[in-house]
């Protein structure tokens, strides 16, 4: 583990550190950094997780002014994520530790120089010569990270440079389908849906999981895929750590069967394992599917895709296995937004209202209430008819009407019925009793001519309208 001292130790001595280069300064430092590399040799393309740890004396306040950066020739480095913070005691001194995790990937073989990584920060150091007063205040504020008397100083904490021996990937044993993956991986696959008809596409998802250079790896190769049309996969990466060293990368292949198929193609993925220093080729198991090829001329791929496809049959498909129903002409206006829909719905609506109204009327005219209504209507008609008759016929008709009213009311005679009428209709009742007498005279008078004056007719008609069942 390369370990470094502060680049300017003299700028930030502790209060009791008179000589920063002395023995006491080595055991109680203001800040220092170390670079942790898990190995000293690596292969080209291998992802090497590294850690930068910055130690700050816990008794002094620090304010970090910059983010550390690492760059150099011959390797790539992941962007440094936010640091994790912890505490550590070294030789009896407490330190706050900021740890930055990242990874480097060698791009060429040879000795790789990893330059130092630095971090700028500001701290407050006690003013020398403040004497016992300063010590007293420092004891008072002890543990709070606050120095009672001090001055701000900028310091730069820098790690030591390091070296890494990078070996090239071996030529022998390199698989034809090797796409640059270096690490330790596993392969799995799934298909969705597993039953497709008429040339519908299905998705074959091939997942490479493990640890390694996910950024640089090529896609798995589909073998035994001659009977399928395939397209470049869409990829998604699900990292398992902050630097993307471990994770799972999924490759979604869109597949369309040229001929009926009962299993998917096999995915093949090759990588170099730096642990065993050998190439490894993983193969997925074929997945059982029911994939029906497209039939009919309409499902032929376009000219632009011709390089990737096999011409589909054009006219040999029998009608019963037609790929699709004929595309009926349609409109961009939905049916429900067209006037025809409103007209068509207005017809049953009108019928519905007709049924409801007619039903209500029919119910109203049936039963006792209906009988009463009909009787009133008939009586009204009869009154009109009687009003048109003359003298004896008029009296006879009026008498029949009164007798009919009496019978409808359950009385034996018209006189009885008239007697039962309320006293408020006394005048009308009297007129009608007189009318009945005149009618009897006309009926039984033996040819006696009876004349009814206009005023009497009007009186009788008014009484008939007022007195009714």
């Amino acid at each position, binding site marked *: 583990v390369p370990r470094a001292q502060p680049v300017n130790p003299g700028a930030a001595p502790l209060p009791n550190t008179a000589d920063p280069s002395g023995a006491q300064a080595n055991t109680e430092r203001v800040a220092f950094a170390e670079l942790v590399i898990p190995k000293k040799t690596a292969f080209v393309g291998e992802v090497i997780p590294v850690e930068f740890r910055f130690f700050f004396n816990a008794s002094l306040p620090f304010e970090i002014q910059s983010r550390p950066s690492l760059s150099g020739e011959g390797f790539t480095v992941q962007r440094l994520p936010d640091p994790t913070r912890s505490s550590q005691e070294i030789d009896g001194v407490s330190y706050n530790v900021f740890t930055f995790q990242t990874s480097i990937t060698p791009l060429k073989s040879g000795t790789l120089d990893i330059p130092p990584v630095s971090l700028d920060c500001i701290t407050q150091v006690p003013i020398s010569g403040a004497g016992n007063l300063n010590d007293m205040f420092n004891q008072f504020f002890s543990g709070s990270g606050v120095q009672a008397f001090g001055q701000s100083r900028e310091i730069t904490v820098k790690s030591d440079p390091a070296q890494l021996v990078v070996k090239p990937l071996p030529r022998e044993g390199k698989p034809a389908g090797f796409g640059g993956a270096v690490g330790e991986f596993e392969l799995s696959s799934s298909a969705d849906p597993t039953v497709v008809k008429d040339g519908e596409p299905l998705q074959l998802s091939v997942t490479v999981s493990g640890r390694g250079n996910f950024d640089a790896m090529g896609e798995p190769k589909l073998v035994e895929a001659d009977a399928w*049309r395939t397209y470049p996969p869409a990829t998604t990466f699900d990292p398992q750590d902050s630097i993307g060293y471990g994770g799972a990368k999924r490759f979604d292949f869109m597949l369309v069967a040229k001929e009926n198929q009962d299993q998917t193609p096999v995915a093949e993925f090759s990588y170099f394992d730096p642990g065993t220093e050998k190439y490894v080729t993983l193969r997925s198991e074929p997945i059982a599917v029911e994939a029906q090829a497209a039939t009919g001329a309409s499902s032929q791929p376009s000219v632009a*895709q011709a390089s990737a496809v096999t011409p589909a049959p054009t006219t040999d498909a029998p009608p019963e296995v037609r790929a699709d129903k004929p595309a*009926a002409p349609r409109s*961009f206006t939905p049916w429900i937004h067209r006037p025809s829909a409103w007209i*068509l719905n207005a017809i049953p609506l009108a019928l*519905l209202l007709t049924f409801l109204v007619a039903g209500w009327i029919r119910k109203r005219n049936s039963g006792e209430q209906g009988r009463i209504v009909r009787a009133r209507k008939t009586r009204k008609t009869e009154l009109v008819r009687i009003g048109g008759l003359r003298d004896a016929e008029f009296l006879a008709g009026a008498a029949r009407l009164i007798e009919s009213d009496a019978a409808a009311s359950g009385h034996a005679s018209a006189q009885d019925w008239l007697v039962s009428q309320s006293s408020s209709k006394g005048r009308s009742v009297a007129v009608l009793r007189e009318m009945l007498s005149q009618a009897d005279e006309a009926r039984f008078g033996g040819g006696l001519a009876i004349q009814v004056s206009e005023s009497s007719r009007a009186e009788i008609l008014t009484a008939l309208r007022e007195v009714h069942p």
Partner: protein
Amino acid sequence: MITLRLFLLMLGVAVTVSSAGAAQSSELPESPQTYVDLAKTDVDSGNIVGAALNYQRALVLDPGYRVAQNAFAEFAAANRIQLRPRSWQDDVVAFVHPETLTMIGCAVGWIGALGLAWMVFAGGFTVWRTAGGIALVGVGTALFAMGWVSDPRIADANLAVLSGKDPARVLSGPADNSAMIAELSPGSAVGILSPRGPWTYVVTPSGARGWIASDRLISVLPESQNAGEG
């Protein structure tokens, strides 16, 4: 013939008695196959956006048209165009066109309602007849509603295709310096949620919501249709 034609027109069914006349009339309904053919022509000429737009229009006209579905799926895979996840509406329209569903729903619902009204008119109410009438009204309403929400001309009325040659950035705010939420290939379809001048708030096929430059969007429904629908 005229009576039959009028009757079919009332049913909303396209009547193409004379193919010559149909070709000349601009008001006759469009054919999904026409748009598929246009899309293939666009593919041949390298017009990715035009092809995507025409495939989308074919599927808006007939979302269950498998020829268009398959061709569009292959086209999208070849051009890295992101498609929205399959929904239950897609399963519905695979069996029957939503318009047909709407019509059947109307018919069944009205039969149930008229049956109930006839019982009011003629009497003869029984538990079973009443339950049957109510059930028909319920089923008809459900079919109508299913056809309504499955019809892309209604549900996807705000669908737009991304134009241009470069990928379009979906941003977290209506400003160029906003954080990028997603990047969509030309030809991808987004749902317009709220147009705001030079920026439009959209939902991407994956469900992310963000802002995109308005001049990158082409409505899937023809503009006259959108204007007509208000």
